């Protein structure tokens, strides 16, 4: 468990002393080792159920405790799958002078470490710390390529993230004052339906909604994700915002016992996100903005977990989380290639791209299958389970959200794809892309598709420790 956090942290300072070629080796090594660590964790959880680990042997009230169960395995696995290809891509994508790359890689590995830490920690104050680490690594990464647009996006992101942290911290303080503990399990044990708990939970939730870019606190996301360099956008959209959802799920389903009304409210926010985000995506003319608004929309599906609250819905939303993460990273990397070749990302000027960037375009096509929730993709399985939970419980409005969102997604994604079929013979031939740039988007997109054939073991992996065990 510790390895997953410490490994990238160790790599961070090392990057400062390496030449480009050795750096590539380092990416491979870290990727391999972190995959190994997550693999071992997955095996242990499958065999023995949820695990808990006290760092340094100090134990709950004083020390730092880590925990892992099905819920945390989903983002862990996603991180272990997305970071390696995106790192390799970033290695060849960033063409800035060496000094700027010096800033980039330590921050990159800090972000990686923060991602793992935030889903492993068992204590709500440490969550705050890891969230700050994430913010402080992510915001500079947005501006690493420079430019006024990136700076504006980053500042807005910073503002929202800090406000989110602040409200989160306030909530934590309230809960600590009321219950005298910060540990998640201990907190669940003494949870009471009183005012401080309710206000504390509300503050924490608002903070997490802001971090997780959930409608209507999403407004920082599109400018920041659209302006960042492609690999950074990929990681922000695929991984970083998911942490907000993960923590919401952890607190609402494991720790606290909020009423059905509050859960419905979250679900409605999700519905708002799906429709608002999709309609905005339909209106955008720039590829990266379309993809960014699509993230806003797709995060909305996840929130349906709260009103549906069942084991099927939990596994469904986690599969959706994984599927979306992989496909979204693929799309952002593909958008990076388009920018790299064309110098712009205006969708209506995409004629001829299909022939010029065949693998990139295939990646867009394959990612489209995932994001519209068509079979066979991990996202389809997730959507299927969410739909099934909705039909089982007769919550037809969720069916409308899920199906309507899929149709809207088809609308904005096929609009991009269609342009590739227009042939423009006047197009000059481009220099071939380095293999990492050409193939990494497709690899991620295919992974989002082919992992659906491992759906059954994946589902078993996500359920250990779920709070619905015992209820059908």
């Amino acid at each position: 468990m510790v390895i997953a956090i410490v490994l990238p942290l160790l790599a961070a300072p090392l990057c400062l002393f390496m030449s480009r070629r050795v750096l590539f080796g380092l990416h491979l090594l870290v990727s391999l080792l972190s995959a190994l660590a997550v693999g071992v964790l997955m095996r242990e959880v499958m065999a023995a159920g949820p695990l808990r680990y006290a760092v340094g042997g100090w134990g709950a009230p004083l020390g730092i405790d880590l925990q892992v169960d099905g819920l945390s395995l989903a983002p862990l696995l996603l991180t272990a799958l997305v970071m390696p290809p995106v790192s390799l891509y970033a290695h060849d994508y960033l063409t800035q002078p060496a000094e700027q790359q010096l800033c980039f890689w330590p921050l990159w590995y800090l972000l990686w470490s923060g991602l793992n830490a935030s889903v492993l920690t068992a204590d709500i104050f440490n969550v705050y710390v890891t969230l700050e680490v994430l913010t402080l690594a992510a915001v500079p990464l947005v501006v690493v390529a420079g430019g006024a647009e990136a700076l504006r996006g980053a500042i807005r992101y910073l503002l929202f993230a800090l406000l989110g942290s602040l409200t989160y911290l306030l909530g934590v303080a309230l809960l600590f004052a009321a219950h005298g503990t910060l540990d998640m399990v201990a907190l669940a044990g003494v949870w009471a339906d009183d005012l401080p708990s309710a206000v504390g939970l509300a503050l924490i939730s608002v903070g997490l909604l802001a971090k997780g870019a959930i409608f209507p606190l999403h407004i920082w996301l599109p400018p920041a994700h659209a302006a960042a360099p492609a690999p950074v956008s990929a990681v922000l959209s695929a991984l970083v915002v998911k942490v907000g959802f993960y923590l919401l799920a952890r607190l609402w389903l494991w720790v606290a016992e909020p009423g059905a009304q509050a859960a419905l409210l979250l679900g409605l926010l999700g519905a708002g996100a799906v429709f608002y985000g999709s309609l905005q995506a339909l209106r955008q003319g720039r590829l990266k903005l379309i993809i960014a608004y699509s993230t806003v929309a797709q995060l909305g599906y996840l929130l349906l977990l709260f009103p549906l609250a069942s084991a099927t819905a939990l596994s469904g939303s986690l599969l959706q989380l994984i599927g979306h993460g992989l496909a979204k990273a693929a799309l952002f990397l593909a958008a990076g290639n388009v920018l790299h070749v064309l110098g712009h990302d205006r969708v209506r000027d995409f004629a001829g791209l299909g022939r010029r960037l065949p693998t990139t375009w295939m990646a867009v096509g394959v990612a489209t299958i995932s994001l519209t929730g068509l079979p066979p993709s991990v996202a389809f399985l997730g959507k299927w389970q969410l739909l099934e939970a909705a039909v089982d419980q007769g919550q037809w409005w969720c069916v409308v959200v899920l199906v309507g969102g899929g149709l809207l997604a088809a609308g904005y994604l096929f609009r991009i794809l269609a342009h590739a079929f227009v042939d423009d013979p006047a197009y000059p031939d481009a220099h071939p892309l380095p293999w990492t740039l050409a193939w990494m988007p497709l690899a991620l997109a295919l992974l989002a598709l082919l992992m659906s054939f491992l759906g059954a073991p994946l589902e078993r992996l996500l359920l250990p420790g779920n709070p619905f065990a015992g209820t059908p």
Partner: protein
Amino acid sequence: MSHSLLPLATVLIPVITGIMVFFLDESQRRLRTVLNLSGAVLNLLAALVMLVGVFQEQAFAWRWPLLAGLELYLEADAFAMLFTPLSAGLWLVTTVYAVGYMEHYHNRRRFFGFFSLCVATTMGVALAGNLLTFFVFYELLTLSTYPLVVHRGDARSLAVGTIYLRYTVGAGAVLLVGLIWVHSLAGTLEFTEGGFLAPFQEHDTSLRIIFFLLVGGFGVKAALVPLHGWLPMAMVAPAPVSALLHAVAVVKAGAFGIVRVVYDVFGVTFAHSLGVTGILAVWASLTILYGSLRALAQDDLKRRLAYSTVSQVSYIALGVSIAGPVATIGGVVHLIHQGVTKITLFFCAGNLAETLHIHKISEMDGVGRQLPLTMSAFTLGALGMIGIPPMAGFITKWYLGLGSLEAGQPWVILVLLASTLLNAAYFLPILHRVWFRPARHAPPPPAREGPLLLLLPPLITGTLALLTGLFAAAPFTPLEWTVLITEREYPDGYHASP
């Protein structure tokens, strides 16, 4: 071992062919052709081996779990074995045709790649052993045909492509809701002879809604009026694509879906007791008449054929919605008969466009003298569509008519009669122009058939359309096979002797 792998192989062979074609260079024409043809031949062989095996009562099935209680399931059951050899056979013929036809097109690599993927998904639809698998391949079919429809890449193709997607993706969404509802109700999606929903009779309102969700979802591709709008528009695609869309892949997938829903999900007797088949029968009849009427008014040859498809495919829906074994035979066997007949007509239309640049019916005066062989095939196809004995189309209408009498629904005969008259009214004038009018250019140019690759396919399928009708009662014909299926669907003693 091979018993579980054969159905999988039938789906994977075209997938692999398609991927390999994607990676070839645009200029490697010969290698691409060899790949395409060997893929098609291999696939046909696999289908035939399964056909013989199923005849000897062997089972071919492949399962793969996706989630708890949800699996991909390919199975060569009797219905599947009707559709699979048809698709595999027509794919081979169409590949030959496409190699000849696409000679002057750009981006052949992309075309043949998606062409193969399209066949793979059709195989998946044919072999699907449960509704989920059917749905998966049905959706993939949309995705793999879209690039074929917009292949020309001009503004018009793109606009049509968007309309095509609106119809089919919307249908997919409706279908998904129906599917989930069935799963939530019954806990299974596996096709069962005689249906699996009968035990849930007390949810009859839900079941009726589900029926129309499913049939509506499939009805878009089967082009039931008013869900047919995409079909005549999709005629912008190159001729081999139109042929494939109309005769084998898309339209048939929809019709086959309706067949599966009625027989293997609801069960025809149960569906009848719910009262939903009556509505479907009326719906199909309206489509038959509407399609024929619209076909009359078209001057563009491909559009007339397209409306004719709208009309003809609904014979299948009509046949399955009349609860009775004889009508079942008529409807199901039309899957095959319409397939071979309509593909012939589209090949011929493609040849006209390619060799003489004729697209309109009004330009077809006297072309019989210039393209005698092509137009002979066309004539066979047209007569088959009208249903003149001994063509295959006649067999269909014969069984449908008998079946409607047997089921006590004689009004269907009127529909058949009206439709036959209309079919004659829009096909016979074409034949008259082709053979009996003088050519527009006097003196008429000498006979000048197109290349062999374009000529052979319509001749083969045209002959097939004749032979399946002429020797309908011989063993191993589609009709005999359908009778076998029907005997399994109506277990309490039916013997086919019309």
